[in-house]
């Protein structure tokens, strides 16, 4: 009985510890980072003009086929300016990047690519933001990792830099490449 009442004295301490663990975990959580509803879902269908060649519309079928990144950018987006040089680096590494020019002025966007270089295989001009809406974009830059079947595997909100690439995107991208080459081998065996 006496031990029980002694133990009761520890209840506040236990409560404090539980609370402390929760709050400590909270320090590391970023409330701005939302899980994308589009992960593991197919890239939405679209039919939008290409930024450079405005006469021809491109669709989902034109950009799906191998593991690639879809980078949502705009000239009004300050963070995109910071991100841009790293995209060139990724291009040099052989990563396929498609650009989605999100709610932007076409002339400004073309000028931007001329000045800063064009790391994209092609850029989709999403002037109205309709593709952005279907993707659940809520701010640029955002980067989507899409596999060879056109399924969205990961969405990164914010700048892609060395740290993000090596710790988050690269491992998943490599996995997709490995899966691709495996399925290719199987095809040749058959």
């Amino acid at each position, binding site marked *: 009985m006496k031990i029980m009442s002694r133990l009761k004295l520890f209840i506040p301490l236990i409560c404090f510890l539980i609370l402390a663990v929760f709050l400590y975990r909270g320090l590391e959580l970023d*409330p701005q980072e*939302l*899980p*994308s509803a589009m992960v593991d879902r197919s890239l939405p269908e679209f039919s939008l003009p290409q930024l450079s060649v405005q006469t021809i519309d491109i669709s989902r079928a034109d950009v799906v086929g191998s593991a690639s990144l879809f980078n949502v950018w705009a000239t009004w987006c300050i963070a995109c300016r910071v991100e841009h040089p790293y995209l060139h680096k990724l291009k040099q590494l052989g990563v396929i990047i498609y650009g989605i020019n999100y*709610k932007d002025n076409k002339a400004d966007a073309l000028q931007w690519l001329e000045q800063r270089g064009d790391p994209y295989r092609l850029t989709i001009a999403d002037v109205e*933001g309709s593709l952005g*809406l*279907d993707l659940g*974009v*809520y701010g640029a830059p955002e980067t989507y990792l899409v596999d060879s079947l056109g399924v969205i595997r990961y969405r990164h909100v914010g700048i892609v830099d060395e740290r993000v690439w090596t710790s988050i995107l690269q491992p998943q991208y490599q996995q997709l490449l490995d899966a691709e080459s495996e399925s290719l081998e199987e095809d040749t065996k058959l």
Partner: protein
Amino acid sequence: MILAVIKRVALILLCLTASAQVLAAIDHHTFEDENLRQRYLSLVKELRCPKCQNQNIADSNSPISNDLREQVYLQLKAGNSDQQIISYMVERYGQFIVYRPPLKGKTLILWMAPVMFLLIGLACIVFLVRRPTESNSVAVSNTGTSQRIKELLNEEEQS
């Protein structure tokens, strides 16, 4: 005097409610149908802005909120039901976008936590209220003390 106080309170209330009106983003959408307008207003209040968290898309002036309001407007005009519009948003932005999450496995804790805390609170109250009676019974069982109390009470009555 009292009238002055009432006037002052009324003035403060007026200021507070007026400023609440200013919070809402400027909205250019117009409806001929009053019913449609009401549905629009309740929808934009219930949908949450993905960029500026803890604001609904009615209050927020961010570009994404403008787009989402436009989308709600267009879909209402197209004759879509409230449920269709909400699922359209959830499909793209996830459960985060609705301020009233549906009752299911993952959100169960959201709905149950208030009830749980209420029960914990009630349990605490019951525990605290019942404890003194226990200590009373201890005091009564102590014959010496109860004897002394009786004596004191008797003295009181006699005086």
